């Protein structure tokens, strides 16, 4: 029996998420649907950091930060939801959301956000 993972939003900027959802609703929903797919794998005890067979919408960035993309949408804006799965706490920290154009600054913020957790 594996422990159920929780989702922590304390490190995420709500105004950024709210703005993104208003501007790119389909992509927002798709990213969170893909987060559910990853969460289910974690709930089953999968060690994603060790796996080499990730689905294509899921990529390791740096320092344990992963990005989840939108998928299955025609003409969609390339979107990235940044997360940090903490295996000690069984918590997925949501760090940020953005597009391909803003990925450098989004990732820099995400790296800053995980300092001090796990």
């Amino acid at each position, binding site marked *: 029996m594996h422990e*159920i993972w*929780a*989702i*922590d*939003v*304390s490190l*995420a900027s*709500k105004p950024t*998420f*709210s703005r993104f*959802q*208003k501007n790119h*609703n389909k992509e*927002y*929903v*798709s990213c*969170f*649907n*893909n*987060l*559910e*797919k990853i*969460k*289910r*794998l974690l709930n*089953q005890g*999968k060690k994603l950091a060790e*796996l*080499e*067979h990730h*689905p*294509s*919408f899921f990529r390791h960035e740096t320092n344990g930060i992963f990005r989840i993309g939108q*998928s*299955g949408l025609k003409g969609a804006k390339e979107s990235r939801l940044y997360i940090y799965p903490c295996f000690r706490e069984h*918590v997925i920290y*949501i760090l940020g959301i953005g597009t391909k154009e803003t990925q450098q600054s989004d990732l820099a913020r995400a790296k800053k956000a995980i300092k001090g957790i796990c």
Partner: protein
Amino acid sequence: MEDLRYTSVGDAAASLAGDEKVKLQVDEEICCSQLVNTLLQLRIEKGISQKELAKRIGCDPSKISRLEAGNDLQLKINDVRQYLSALDVTMNMVFEDTSLPVAEQIKQHIFQIHEKLEELVKLAKQVDGDEVIINKIHVFCSEVLFNFLSRFGDKRFTENDSVIKHARPKTDYPLLRRRGDPCGRSPL
């Protein structure tokens, strides 16, 4: 103080967006991705990459990627069949006519149980051919069918029917007087 931890992805998405309607949208999308989720889980459990799976099927890896990235409504049955076959997983489809009377629906389930138990017998034979286990499965199978037919059987199930013949217990085990049930109540 606001709760910042969630077990539901839909709740987290709605909280971050500041819009409760988002939860419904996310939950609906998740609901439409159950089969895709299962396929993805099976592939990862078996430790097979998208590339390897594509090689086994004889298609481009991008096809596997698209399939896993979409939802159930975008799936084609032949793609699902090929995907599962390449993972050595068989696919069973169950059709249940919910407009049938309850007794008929029960029959459907009973015969499904019977089929599954027969599969269990086949597996038991494959493993070590332990006759005791095989006999016990048969006894259980016969009990379920016999009790069911005793109660719900109609003219379609006569003494000449092969199903009822098969179901008739082949042991002296008091089928309708199960251990621990002195009243002899049927499990059905």
